């Protein structure tokens, strides 16, 4: 049992005693608190950045620069009336927000925030848990996180939320595959599933980052796929205000609504952190030689990179128009999945030998040509005129009968 938490963490090597348990508990608490705190900051950050981009002032009443605005909003939501629609499935309706929140919290456990530190004779990683299945936990949790949305939409007993649910489930399944395959490319390069190992393998300068090592393509795919998984703009068809009036959370109010909100922003932060871990070397970066403070710089590097991604998400939201639902599906199935598959083959091939790499590249190229043609044909067939045949009962008439009917003569 312990192995799942302890694979790479030197904390557990010497056995478990009270101190170890205390340290582990403190790690969990610190991570939780930091995450919660950063969510409030993130919300403020998003509103502020968007207002800046739109030449507005944004929140500015509460606290310096409006920093406490989020807190105020939270208090407001807390005291609002808790409505449950009459048509709702009460149990599921109440359950859904928690299902949304929990995966977001758990995912963060695998993110290495900094290097190892030593306190009270115990060396440990600045990471809640370094599990041997590390990155698989990310996939698992991103798989689970969709339940919040699906069940919330369904249980509301209302049309728009239901459509949102259907969209969410389809979207999740569509992008999960591409996401998984890019993660596999990272794992191939590292040879380990552990996020600690992934970060360690990228140490020693930005040219070692997976971003560079694997070519930029996996990162781009990952970014797109994760954005879709997060239902962030421009892939927010699930909660599109203009189409679905907010989608799955239309019927939610009060604290439950706040939980969804919390989950979404927490996910944004976590995924930014995961992206940093997978492609940008995590906490790695130049460390100035300042005694007793070596541990601090990796954390700062990590935070810096993460904030950059958070900013990117906000920027997307401000700058990009929303995808149409069918475009979203097309992008997922027809572009990202084939591309990520081809890239995965390529990476695997070059890891074995250049010969393999080039031959797999050639195969991928051929495959992409074939795929393009198949899509083309599929499209032309789709739009082809639907000739209406006369039917007998439910079954169309056989063509030879038809020919006789239309030719008007029997040869």
């Amino acid at each position, binding site marked *: 049992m312990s192995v799942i938490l302890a694979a790479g963490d030197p904390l557990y090597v010497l056995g478990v005693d009270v101190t170890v348990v205390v340290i582990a508990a403190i790690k969990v608490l610190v991570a939780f608190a930091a995450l919660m705190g950063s969510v409030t900051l993130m919300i403020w950050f998003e509103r502020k950045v968007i207002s800046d981009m739109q030449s507005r002032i944004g929140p500015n009443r509460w606290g310096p620069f409006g920093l406490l605005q989020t807190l105020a909003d939270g208090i407001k939501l807390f005291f609002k009336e808790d409505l449950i629609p009459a048509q709702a499935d009460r149990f599921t309706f109440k359950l859904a927000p928690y299902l949304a929140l929990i995966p977001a919290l758990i995912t963060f456990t695998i993110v290495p925030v900094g290097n190892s530190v030593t306190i009270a004779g115990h060396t440990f990683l600045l990471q809640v848990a370094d599990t041997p299945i590390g990155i698989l936990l990310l996939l698992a949790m991103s798989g689970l996180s969709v339940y919040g949305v699906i069940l919330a939409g369904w249980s509301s007993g209302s049309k728009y939320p239901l459509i949102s649910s259907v969209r969410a489930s389809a979207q999740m399944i569509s992008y999960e595959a591409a996401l998984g395959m890019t993660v596999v490319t990272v794992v191939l390069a590292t040879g380990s599933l552990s996020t600690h190992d992934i970060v360690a393998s990228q140490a020693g300068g930005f040219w070692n980052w997976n971003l560079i090592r694997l070519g930029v393509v996996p990162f781009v795919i990952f970014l797109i796929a994760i954005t879709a998984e997060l239902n962030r703009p421009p892939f927010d068809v699930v909660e599109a205000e203009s189409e679905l009036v907010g989608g799955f959370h239309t019927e939610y109010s009060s604290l439950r609504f706040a939980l969804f909100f919390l989950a979404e922003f927490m996910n944004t932060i976590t995924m930014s952190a995961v992206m940093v871990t997978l492609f940008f070397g995590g906490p790695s970066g130049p460390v100035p030689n300042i005694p007793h403070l070596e541990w601090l710089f990796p954390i700062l590097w990590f935070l810096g990179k993460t904030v950059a991604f958070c900013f990117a998400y906000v920027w997307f939201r401000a700058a990009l128009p929303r995808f149409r639902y069918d475009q979203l599906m097309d992008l997922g199935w027809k572009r990202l999945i084939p591309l990520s598959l081809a890239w995965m083959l390529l990476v695997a091939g070059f890891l074995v030998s250049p010969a393999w790499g080039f031959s797999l590249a050639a195969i991928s190229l051929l495959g992409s040509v*074939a795929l393009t*043609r*198949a899509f083309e*044909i599929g499209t*032309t067939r789709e739009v082809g005129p639907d000739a209406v045949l006369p039917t007998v*009962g*439910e*079954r*169309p008439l*056989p063509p030879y009968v038809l020919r006789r009917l239309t030719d008007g003569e029997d040869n």
Partner: protein
Amino acid sequence: MTITMPSVNYLAIAPILVLLGGSLALMMIAALTKSRVSLGVATVTSAAVCAVATIVSVFQWSDVSSHGESTTLAHAVAYDGFGIVATAIIAVTTLLATLSARDWIARARTVGVEFHILLLAAAAGAMMMAQANDLIVVFLGLEILSIGLYVLVAYDRHRSTSSEAALKYLLLGGFASALFIYGAALTYGGTGTTTLTGIAYFMAHNFILQPGVLVAGVGLMLVGFAFKVAAVPFHTWSPDVYEGAPSPVTGFMASVVKVGAFAGVLRILIGALGTQATAWRPLVAALVILSTFLGAGLALVQSNIKRLLAYSSINHAGFMLLGLWSATPRGVAGTLYYVMTYAPVVVATFTIVSLRGGVNEDLHELGGYRGLARRQPLLGAALAVLLLSQAGAPFTTGFYAKFAVLTAAVDAGGAWIGVAVMVAASIAGYFYIRLVLSLYDTHDSAEVVTVPRTSAFVIAVGVLSALVFGVWPGPLESLAQHAVLLLP
């Protein structure tokens, strides 16, 4: 860290590769050509693929004859006469089913090259079962076969019974798969390996004082198989599914599933767990008795020919199980011979049923067959021969099939079970002969059935196989006899 990849004997898995390759090729053609793939192209391609697989199995046979049996791919695939013969049967039967389906597809206007893709892949699954030397491979083969069939059963989208039958089949098939794999898991726990030869080796070198785990595992696997081959009391799905599925698919189901499933079960129970025969034989005996009697008895009261043939197929499953019951090489040969001769006959029978049943599969009442032979002597005679062969009439292969499994059972000390199944056979003989008689009824109600050339070919093959090898049984007999099961 080095990984030693297992060596691959490509000839050993060539038929499987050929079928899957053909399936894939059809898929590619469908995806990459502008016009839709015509039925002709699809039929010719898949028929050619099956023919190639059959020819390949001839080469395999001579290879195994000269070099002996072996396993390949890390003991996952057995390369032995038994597997080759079963594979060849599957290839030939699939060829016939393809041709039989051609006319149905043309008439029913459910165009789509997917039919052939699925048919070939399902047949490849059956071949995997036939050649498997690992419980997991058996399971995967079973699933490939079953999943292909679920879709094929639902293929007629103009008829709601088709998809309903598929749903029923799928639910019970899933249940059966779960039972089987649970049994496989317990067997794994009991022996520490999933390889069949490994299990046999383990059994040979260990004396198991408490075989509880194994007994439970074997029992569950057997029940799973009983579901798949529709042995009583696990047969309840089969009449409905036989009725609902498109007739050529029913023919394929009645033949290839039996070949694959019996090949798999013989490998597992006799090849690997033959030493535990005392544990599983009572269960098989119960299945044999129940299947033969209830299959024959319930067939008597059917008024729909597809349901009747479903019960008849249950009855035949009972006979095939008799070879398993005997748990001897002779039993293996007997069951192999049984499926070998039953397969073409049943495909041909369902071809006629398909022609007679009409596009909407709504003309399956037995009354509709009255006087068929009067109006269309050749077609009627063909159906009569096919039915008589299934009844086990002398000088048809059906008789030797029953004889072969009966001999095996008596040889294994089962004269009592032999007597029992022969009584059941006489009940079965009655409903067959009654149907045959109604074909020759002077009461002329049968409409004229047009027989397209491909269907005629399939029917002719079925009839000739029953008659020619009925008079001259030597070749098939020695084939079955020499198809030795791989033993460690």
